[in-house]
């Protein structure tokens, strides 16, 4: 039984691996570009975590504990790095491959299906997100922001964020028509970064704003990563994970449906 199901899974996943291999080969010449993307998050860490953080000193959390502002902000910026790595890859790059370079038109003449393409793009986005997260975690460690071994769990937590934004990005790529649409996406992303609980506890926001924040996918990512890296577990984390996984599944499914509709004309 298990051998059969293993074979089935392998047969379903192998084609998406070919898509992943294609991206790896295409992008390995542009690795500088990819790696340098991780630098952005580090700049935010230095500016807000350390620069502004040294002016804030300690921050008192809603539950009464006080921690250094740097340690408070760093996990949120890590979550942001996971988001940016995958979102940029799946939205902008997939859009370019889909509408501009017509890469998928060529691929669909092979046994590959739209679902394999979408899944392959998700794997690739995870790798790129993983590079950003890895760079960031190393920097956090170097600056003494990883005080417990629990904080290592922040890395798998980032996988949930990356999956969610891979799904969202893929879906957006199928909806976008021109480059200016990305300006608007970046606007929303930046608004999430500034108001998703990155810099101040959401509990301190005005009441009307709080429900809006709870809808933001990044908020759930931040809660998860921050909770784990501070070693503060909470049953709400389950909700965070479920919300992110739902976005990942729905996003990827919608994306492959729309790819199929657009490419199987």
């Amino acid at each position: 039984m298990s051998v059969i199901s293993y074979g089935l899974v392998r047969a379903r996943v192998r084609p998406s691996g070919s898509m992943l291999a294609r991206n790896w080969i295409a992008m390995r010449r542009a690795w500088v570009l990819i790696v340098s993307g991780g630098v952005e998050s580090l700049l935010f860490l230095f500016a807000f975590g350390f620069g502004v953080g040294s002016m804030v000193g300690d921050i008192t959390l809603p539950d009464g504990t006080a921690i250094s502002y740097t340690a408070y902000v760093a996990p949120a910026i890590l979550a942001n790095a996971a988001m940016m790595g995958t979102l940029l890859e799946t939205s902008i790059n997939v859009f370019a491959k889909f509408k501009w370079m017509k890469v998928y038109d060529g691929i669909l003449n092979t046994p590959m299906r739209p679902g394999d393409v979408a899944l392959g793009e998700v794997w690739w986005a995870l790798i790129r997100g993983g590079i950003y997260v890895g760079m960031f975690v190393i920097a956090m460690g170097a600056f003494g922001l990883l005080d417990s071994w629990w904080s290592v769990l922040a890395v798998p937590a980032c996988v949930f964020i990356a999956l969610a934004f891979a799904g969202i990005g893929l879906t957006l790529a199928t909806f976008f028509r021109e480059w200016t649409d990305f300006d608007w996406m970046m606007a929303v992303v930046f608004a999430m970064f500034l108001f998703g609980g990155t810099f101040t506890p959401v509990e301190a926001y005005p009441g009307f704003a709080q429900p809006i924040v709870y809808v933001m996918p990044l908020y759930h990512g931040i809660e998860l990563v921050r909770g784990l890296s501070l070693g503060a577990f909470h049953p709400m984390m389950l909700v965070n994970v479920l919300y992110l996984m739902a976005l990942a599944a729905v996003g990827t499914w919608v994306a492959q449906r729309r790819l199929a509709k657009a490419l199987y004309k």
Partner: protein
Amino acid sequence: MTAVAAPAPARLGHAAGAWRAFLLQLALYRHIWHGTAFSSVILPILYMVSIGIGVGSYIDDASTGGITYAEFIAPGLIASVAVMMLGNDMVYPVFGGYREWGGSYLAQRATPLRPVDILNGHLLYAVVFRPLTACTVVAVVLAFFGVYTSAWAALAVVAAVFVSASIAPWLFAWCSSLKSESMLNAVFRFAIMPITLFSGVFFPAEQMPGFLQPLVWLSPLWHGTELARAATADVAPALPPIAHLAYLVALGAGGWLAARRVVVRRLSF
């Protein structure tokens, strides 16, 4: 457009040439203004709410020299708008200007305009028109946050124009000489972002590790922010205002000479 198509005057004055090229840039602006409205106007306001007010509520006035944190970052936000605008106006449009898909320089070159007119026209647009409009809007909106001490705050917009003037020609020269567009992202990551984040806008330059401070002094935005803060919050700048201005002007003049060399080389045929 008809003015440009008129019979080629034997000698087009530099001012007239720049003005014509500027009008052509302005015509393009009508198509793109809404796309840049976010980064130019809305983003700084969001920064003000999230960082200025939100994070500011945890910051003691003593660490910002006796003014509130919102008052502290307001002038820097106005000046940094000028820098972010350059990211819109002086990167892809310049790189694409020489290429078929953008092509605005190639089109202008097909008129009596000289390369130097095209440079001046684009600078006029990016250094004067854009900051004067966008920074003014931001400055006016920020007034509602009660972060100015006097009407002299209006001078912060002038400081922003000088910041823009000191950086724009360098960006023009750099993006004009690039061969491949893959380096354009690097302009954001290694120039515009670091300048915006580490020029004393969000925290005083003294918070930086000592060995990095000389880098801050090189940043045009730091000089501009010092000037703007003097205007909005009546805080004495690090150097006499004339010294800050002199630095920005000298940087801009050097950049213009470099940009002129490149544009003449690229557009002479």
